[in-house]
């Protein structure tokens, strides 16, 4: 029943949209009808945009860029966050830098990234890195900081040394919030990627690049189909993360 109710709004939206399009109330050159978007999807899937550059390759390239940027960000942000949460001195030392860099939107880094790394995988990965880094870092720090001190006291009365407390209490206690950071990070990374590809890719593959090409050749149906793909992949990635999270963080 619940799933039926959840379908009502999107379905009526699509039906209404289709009706408005077929009576020409919405101009087709601005917003193609849902049926045309499906045809556009078929086009990018089978023929490609530009022709010969198929959807699945665009997708693979985009995922690859996110993977590189994301892995690098997580590999640095998680350990750094754990140490910053653990050591007040380190936190006080690093905090001004973090607070200075954090408010700069990743997209504002695009010009300098292109200057540093040229157009290509490196600059795209760098932009994603920036988008992913801070949510993971901040969530990791807060996960370590917000641990109930009584747990550390309990571990100490059970004769745990500093090293044991670090490995067996602090890190596991921070795992749920590290996961939250990783999930938020991947969402932001995915959004950042598409924007990075608008400018950071000249030729070749990438979902962002694909919809820019579609705009250049005036194909709104393919643009919308591409957007739908980007959105669906985003949902899929988020679901995947939640699935892994639920498998690992069984205690919450």
């Amino acid at each position, binding site marked *: 029943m619940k799933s039926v109710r959840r379908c009502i709004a999107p379905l009526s939206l699509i039906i209404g949209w289709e009706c408005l399009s077929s009576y020409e109330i919405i101009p087709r050159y601005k917003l193609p009808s849902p049926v045309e978007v499906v045809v556009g999807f078929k086009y990018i899937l089978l023929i490609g945009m530009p022709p010969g550059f198929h959807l699945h390759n665009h997708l693979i390239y985009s995922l690859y860029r996110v993977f590189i940027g994301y892995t690098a960000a997580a590999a640095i942000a998680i350990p750094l966050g754990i140490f910053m949460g653990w050591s007040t001195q380190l936190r006080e030392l690093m905090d001004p830098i973090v607070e200075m860099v954090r408010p700069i939107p990743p997209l504002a880094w695009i010009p300098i990234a292109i200057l540093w790394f040229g157009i290509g995988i490196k600059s795209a990965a760098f932009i994603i890195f920036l988008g992913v880094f801070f949510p993971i870092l901040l969530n990791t720090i807060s996960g370590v900081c917000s641990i*109930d001190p009584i*747990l550390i006291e309990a571990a100490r009365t059970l004769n745990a040394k500093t090293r044991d407390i670090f490995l067996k*209490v602090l890190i*596991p206690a921070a*795992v749920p919030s590290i996961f939250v950071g990783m999930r938020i990070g991947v969402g932001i990374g995915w959004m950042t990627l598409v924007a990075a590809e608008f400018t950071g890719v000249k030729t070749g593959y990438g979902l962002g690049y694909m919809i820019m090409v579609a705009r250049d050749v005036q194909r709104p149906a393919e643009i919308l189909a591409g957007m739908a793909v980007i959105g669906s992949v985003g949902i899929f990635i988020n679901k995947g993360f939640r699935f892994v999270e639920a498998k690992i963080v069984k205690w919450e």
Partner: protein
Amino acid sequence: MSLEVIGLKKTYYNSDKKRSNVHVLQDVNFKVKDGQFISIIGPSGCGKTTLLKIIAGLEDSTEGKVFLNGEELTTSREQIGLVFQEYALFSWRTTLRNIEFGLEIKGVKKKERRFAALEYIKKFGLSGFEHKYPRELSGGMRQRVAIARTLINNPQVLLMDEPFGSLDSQTRNSLQEFLLKIWRKRDETVLFVTHNVDEAVFLSDQIIVMSERPSGIMKVLDVPCPRPRDRTSRICNQIRKNVLKYVIHDRWLNPHSKIPFVAPF
């Protein structure tokens, strides 16, 4: 294993100059004989928890010493276990892995520590819950896990900080009986902080009554009830009455009190 506390003082120094320092403990002295069950009772905020934390080595005393078997306790407090009111279980560990934590720290092999933990699980009535996480357990079960986790290290002194304070009265009664059953087989020295007079009388050999802040020891009372005890027996009631004379919080309102009023600040 005797535990002795000599001249213990604790002051929290306030860095904010406008507020004065807080003297929590003032000259606490007592000696506990081997294998005794001692309750510490006193008004809330009188520093009972602080006292336990100092004995457990979690906090430093401002002055004073703690001796175990005549030897001064310094940094190593391996002989002392502490059970908290809030259980303080590791939420990411199952019952089994919570209980074996201490052995894991010691470097006991997995097979051995699992075997030892399962013994405790059986004895503590936790069978069937080995692989449950703390959030899946009731309050009474959680506290049993916490007690098992502490006892598996075989401490000589078991400190308990209002361990049954957040349980409903039925669970509380059954855990008191459970604790006595365990203790009589093991003979650890127990230092049990509570604000519940009934609980103190039912459990202990001796009751230490603490005064208001800055706290010292107001009175040490023996509990000469034969064990196993009956909560409602005449002798228990008499002792309870006697203890209550000392712990009525507002002494102005207690006409029977012969204790001189000591200004709390």
